[in-house]
């Protein structure tokens, strides 16, 4: 059975140790919060870079499609570049919507991609008897609209997940 002297000893220990333990616990809380904030900042930065890259590829696709559709002499080389670009955009979009921005909804991304790919590689794409289109042709205008919708979708998703600091 502990005697009164032991109890006094324990209280003395507690008086000495408790402040140190509280300081260590405080450090741990601050460290965890900082680690969480740093991780969030890294994820935000990574996501921003991915969205910027996607937007760059979408702009590249638009330029390549203008080049291809307004000049009927452009052949297999340009159409292949368009297919490679659309496939890269598809891959990046699906990675973003499945891993980073699940809040934007997979079906919206799928619909956006289908519209984009239909506009970029539909109609007389890879056709031997295609004629040069005007730059305000319906097919190109649909491509620009699909591009804008897809960018808006990802930008909205990004700012919903990481609102700008006021």
């Amino acid at each position, binding site marked *: 059975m502990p005697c009164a002297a032991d109890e006094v000893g324990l209280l003395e220990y507690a008086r000495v140790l408790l402040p140190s333990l509280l300081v260590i616990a405080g450090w741990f809380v601050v460290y965890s919060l900082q680690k969480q904030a740093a991780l969030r900042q890294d994820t935000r930065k990574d996501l921003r870079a991915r969205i910027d890259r996607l937007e760059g590829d979408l702009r590249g696709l638009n330029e390549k499609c203008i080049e291809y559709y307004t000049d009927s002499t452009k052949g*297999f080389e340009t*159409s*292949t570049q368009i*297919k*490679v670009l*659309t*496939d890269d955009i*598809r*891959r990046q979009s*699906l990675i973003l919507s499945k891993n980073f921005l699940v809040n934007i909804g997979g079906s919206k991304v*799928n619909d956006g*991609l*289908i519209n984009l*790919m*239909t506009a*970029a*590689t*539909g*109609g*007389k*794409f*890879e*056709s*031997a*008897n295609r004629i040069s289109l005007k730059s305000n042709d319906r097919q190109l205008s649909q491509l620009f609209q699909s591009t804008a919708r897809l960018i808006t979708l990802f930008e909205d998703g990004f700012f919903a997940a990481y609102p700008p600091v006021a």
Partner: protein
Amino acid sequence: MANISIAADFSEFPAGRIPDDGPNSGERFREELLVPLLNGTDEHIEINLDDTLGYGSSFLDEAFAGLLRINGFSLNQLKKRIRFIDSRIIYEPMIWKYIEEESNRAVRG
């Protein structure tokens, strides 16, 4: 079940709508591979879309929506018979969208 791999049985570079557009057109794929299988058996057909250098919408529309437009198949017949393998995820919904649009056009006359 019958299986077709577009890359292995047709071409890794499917492109174009009609044979004038090139040797690996959607029409040639439809007429030489798909239609004989659909007409020659009641089996399900599994079509592997992987391992090609992408698809143009023009190829997919001609190959699959053409089954309704040119060969007289119905949306229900195709839904019962055709399955896809598509690890790129997007081409299968594209194909069904084109088939459904063609079916709607046919219904509207």
